[in-house]
Every structure is written in C-alpha cells, then in structure tokens.
C-alpha cells in the first residue's frame, strides 16, 4: 500500500519534474529578478543598483507613447486578425469538403515553417519604395508611403498572427454539433439568426482563445514594429530593448516589463470571463 503510493508520487515527480525545473530556472527566477530590479535604481554606469523605490513606476508616463501604441495596436491588430480569420475558420470547419480540409489546414500552417523575420523582411520590400508604391506611381499615384506607418505594422501583424487566430476558432467550430444548427433552423431561425444565436456564441471560447493568444503576443511584439514601423511606431517591446540594451536602465525597463505582465493577466482573465459567460462553456481551449 505504502509502496504503491510512493511509486505514484515518484511517477508524478518524473512526469512534472523537467517542466517544473525548466520553468523555475527560466521563468520564475528571472521574473523575481525583474520584480526586484523594478523597485531598484539605475547604477551610474548603467545596470542595476539595490534600492527600494517606486520611482520607476512613477516614471512610467515617460514611455506613455509606447504604452499607447501597444494598447491601441495590440487589440486593433487582434481584432483585424479575428475579422480575417473567422470566415476562413468557418469555411474550413463547416463548408470545406472533408477530403480538402486537412490540406487547407496545412496551407494555413505552412507559413510558420519559414521564419517570421524572413517573411517580415519580404513585406519590407513589398511595402517599401520599390514595392507597391513604385507600382502605384507607375499608374499615376505618386508619393504613396506604406512602410513605416501604423498601417504597415497592422498589416504585418495580421499576416504574422493569422494562423494563431484561425486554429482555435477552427477547433471550436469543428466541434460544434451540427444538429444544433438544424434544431435552430427547425425552430424557425433564419440562417443569419442561427449564426448569431448558436454558431457564433458556441465558437466564442475559440474566438477568445485566439484573441487573447494574439493579443498577449502582440503586447510584447518587437520585430514587426521595428521592421515595418521603422522605429516610428514604437511598441513596449521596442522600449524594453532600448532600455535594457541601449540606455542600460534596467530598473525602469523592469518596471515596464512588470506592468506589461500585469496587463496581460488582466486581458487573459477578462477574455475567459466573457467566453464562459456567453457560451456557458466550462472549458478553455488551448491555453
């Protein structure tokens, strides 16, 4: 009896041990370090100097633009992603012929096989002076600027994160019991009412999963605004790189990082609340 319990505990330890060790060393300890840094002071030569002050947090408004850009572009980007992704997921789950479904799903994922960096460089070229603007100039629209605008960043975001939005929505739509749609039609609901009253509501867990996934990744996004925003559309991610690597103001960077984490947690909880309330589902997909 005692031996079997010991063996069970040992098994649990073996199953969870590696992941726990990994997370403790590479997530929990650094997070504690960052939390400690955030109440410290910048050493004269850069880096960190022990102290206890909330001055770094009081200084957050100095980076208000980065916060503002992130807080606007992250939800707007996630929303744009959602608007493009939902019809695709709907088609894949409910309309596409069965034998094509896997192939089409693979096509959605295939861009992930190439590095996002490469693909974003490609967009730089497409949107840059010798890309689309040159083409527009050729047909008479001079001086169209695409690269280094918020629009370019948004485009890059939608492009880069689309698969992350499509997949969870696809999963929740694919799981949808088709007979519920028939029941709705049987009870007199037009196809539009059925979509709004049944399909959309029951796919909400997937929508919220996709939305919070993309949103959280966007809150820390660095690459796309740097390459397609040209430093003009400054994100929190860019501010962090700047503070840690250039101006070496670790405490202030840490304060920003902690704030970012808190915002992400709030977003995640809110998304979960909404989807459980509306769809009545008790499950949470993927995350």
């Amino acid at each position, binding site marked *: 009896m005692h031996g079997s319990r010991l063996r069970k505990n040992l098994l649990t330890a073996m199953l969870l041990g590696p992941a726990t060790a990994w997370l403790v060393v590479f997530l929990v300890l650094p997070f504690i370090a960052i939390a400690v840094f955030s109440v410290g002071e910048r050493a004269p030569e850069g880096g960190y100097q022990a102290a206890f002050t909330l001055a770094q947090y009081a200084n957050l408004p100095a980076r208000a633009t980065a916060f503002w850009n992130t807080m606007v572009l992250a939800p707007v980007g996630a929303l744009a992603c959602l608007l493009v992704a939902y019809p695709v997921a709907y088609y894949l789950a409910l309309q596409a012929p069965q034998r094509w479904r896997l192939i089409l799903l693979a096509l959605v994922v295939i861009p992930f096989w190439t590095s996002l960096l490469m693909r974003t460089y490609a967009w730089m070229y497409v949107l840059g002076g010798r890309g689309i603007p040159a083409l527009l100039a050729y047909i008479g629209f001079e001086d169209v600027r695409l690269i280094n605008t918020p629009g370019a960043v948004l485009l890059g975001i939608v492009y880069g994160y689309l698969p992350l939005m499509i997949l969870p929505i696809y999963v929740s739509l694919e799981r949808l*019991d088709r*007979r*519920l749609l*028939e*029941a*709705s*039609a*049987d*009870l*007199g*609901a*037009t196809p539009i*009412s059925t979509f709004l*009253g*049944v399909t959309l*509501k*029951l796919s909400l867990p997937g929508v919220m999963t996709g939305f919070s996934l993309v949103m959280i990744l966007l809150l820390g996004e660095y690459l796309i605004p740097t390459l397609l925003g040209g430093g003009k559309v400054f994100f929190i991610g860019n501010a962090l790189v700047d503070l840690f690597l250039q101006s070496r103001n670790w405490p202030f960077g840490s304060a920003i990082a902690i704030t970012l984490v808190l915002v992400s947690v709030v977003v995640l909880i809110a998304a979960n609340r909404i989807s459980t309330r*509306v*769809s*009545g*589902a008790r499950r949470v997909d993927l995350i």
Partner: protein
Amino acid sequence: MTAVPDIEFRGVTKRYGSVTAVSGIDLAVPPSAFVALLGPSGCGKTTCLRMIGGFEQPSEGQVFIRGQDMAGTPPYRRPVNMVFQQYALFPHLDVEDNVAYGLRQARPRLSSREITSRAGEALEMVRLAGYGRRKIHELSGGQQQRVALARALVNKPAVLLLDEPLAALDKKLRTDMQIELQNLQREIGITFVLVTHDQEEALSMSDFVCVMNGGRIVQLGQPSEIYDEPADLFVADFVGKTNLLSGTVAGHTGDLVEIALADGTVIAARKRTALQQGEAVSVSLRPESLSLGAPESGPFKGIVRNRIFLGSTAEYAIEVQGIGTLLAKADHLIGHGNLFKPGEPVAIGFASGTPLAFPETKNNGTNQRVDKHVEIIS
C-alpha cells in the same frame, strides 16, 4: 369525405450519389394521428423524417404538409418541429431560453411577456415548471427529453417529428415516456410522426405503424394488424418474436395451405399470396400461439432447453427433433406451479390462431404491391 392529410409523400425517392435511401414512397398521414415509421437502421425512415423537416430534399417526388408542396421551403419556414435524437438542446442557453428559442424567432415579434408565459406553459405541460433557470447539463436524460419536447411543442406545430426520442433513456423511463407521449398527443391533438427501430415502442404508442425496409414501405396498418397479419416474411420476423419454420407446400384445403415441415409433420397455415404446390415456404408461429402440454398430446414433441421467467408468463426454448429450437410462451398461473423445467419433455400444440406461410424468396411480389400507394384513412 377525406380530410387533407397532414403529411403526404407522393412518389418520393432520395438518392445519395449511387445509394438510394428511399425509393418511391407514397404515404398519406391523416390529421391528429400518431404514426410510427418503423424499420431496421438504414431502411430510410430517418431520411423520410428529415425530408418532412426540410433537412433533406427529395431527389424525386413531392412532400406535402397540410396540402402545401414543400419543395424549396427551408426548415425554418415549415410548420413542423422536431425532437432530435439526443435532443440537440442548446448548451449555452438555460431551460427556459431553450424553450423560448422558437418563440423568439417569430415575426412579427412576440412581446416578452407572451414569450415568458408561453414558455412557462410549455414547461408546465411537460412537468418541468420551476426548472426554467437550470442549465442543460444539470438535467437528467429524462428531463432533457422533456425540454426537447417543450421546445418543439411551444411553437404549436402542425406536426411533431420525433427522431428516436426514447433511445437514450433507460427502460423504466422509456415506458413512462411512452405513456406520456401518448397522452400529450391526445391532449394537443396534432399529428406525431415517430421514427424508431424499436418495434415494441412503435406498436405500443402509435395509431398506425409504417414498416419500412430497404427504402420502401413494406406494410402500413394499425399495430394489431401489423402484428397479427404481417404482410411478408420481413414484417413477421421484424415485428415481435416469432418462430420461422421452413417447409414446402403439400396441398390446399379451402383458404388454407398444407405445409410439410422438415420433420415430415404437416400443418395447416394461412397464406398472403398464392403459393404453388411444392414451393419452399417459411411458416411463422408466434410463441404465444403455441401451447405446452403433457408429452403425448401435441403435433410436436420436444425437450425444454431454457426457461425465461417473465413474471406473468414464461418463455421456453424447446428443442424439437428435425425442426430446431422453438420459442413458446405460456402463462404462469400463480400457485399452480405449472412451470416446465429444463430437460423435461413436452408436447407443443397450437393454442390460438393459425400459422402464416410466406414464400421463402424475399424478392417476391409482396413488396411492390404494398408500397405502390398506401393511404391510411382513419
């Protein structure tokens, strides 16, 4: 004068690619009837129901609801409602919102007071008053079944369609629901069309049973007709328990035929179609039409192999030399102790009714004759 049928099929055929699910069905269901579509899985009964609901379109022929041709009418414009298999209740809505779902779709819109009161009435009708705010997953199977009924009936449909509504319930609950459904149908007075593969359910609940096989209607009639006068071998075998004995036609006496069984015994049987001298036939003997007696008294002698005690009756599997195992049913008279024991020799005679003989080959004229145009007029 005949009333306009609530449901009418005229020459309806449904094909899926090269598979024909339903072929050339003609059927008219009179108003206020309780009709069961009965058959084994794949016989086309569910496809028929789905064509009434509008979820499938006939490949040929027409479906009429109260005299209106339904071609091109989508499900949401048909005056019928369905109780789905496993109910298909909306998991994101509570009981009351499930029931009110159809009312909310009505145009012009109903006032919210009317919606609430009608949903409440419907829940009361299925004895679920006070359950309005429960979540669907908090209900038992029987309660979910009733929510599905209320959700369909609240819209006052011309016809209620029931797709294997009792299949997911346990036996006790199923019997209760059978009675409840019958009462509901009588109370509301609309036509119920029930799809089931359970012959007991079909016989016990409905006014008319439509037995289907291979996409065709094989027999249509009242439950007692279906049971006592099966149209062919398939119906005799599918509906109720029966013993099927092989034999050949030995002669004719009046309306009856004489059948020589495998062991040489000759018995008299009724027939459905003309039978030729020497033709191979199957003879159907219902277990309750057999009587058991002392070893010397009947045409068959056998040995009891199994006894299935059923309370008021008992069934016996009796091995008869040269014929096989026969199933016989005998009343169990309390206190008389007249139960036969396994191993005991018994004689089997005919207590009531005359056996029915059917041609052995399945593709005979019977199928075509019955499904041509069957109309039930109450």
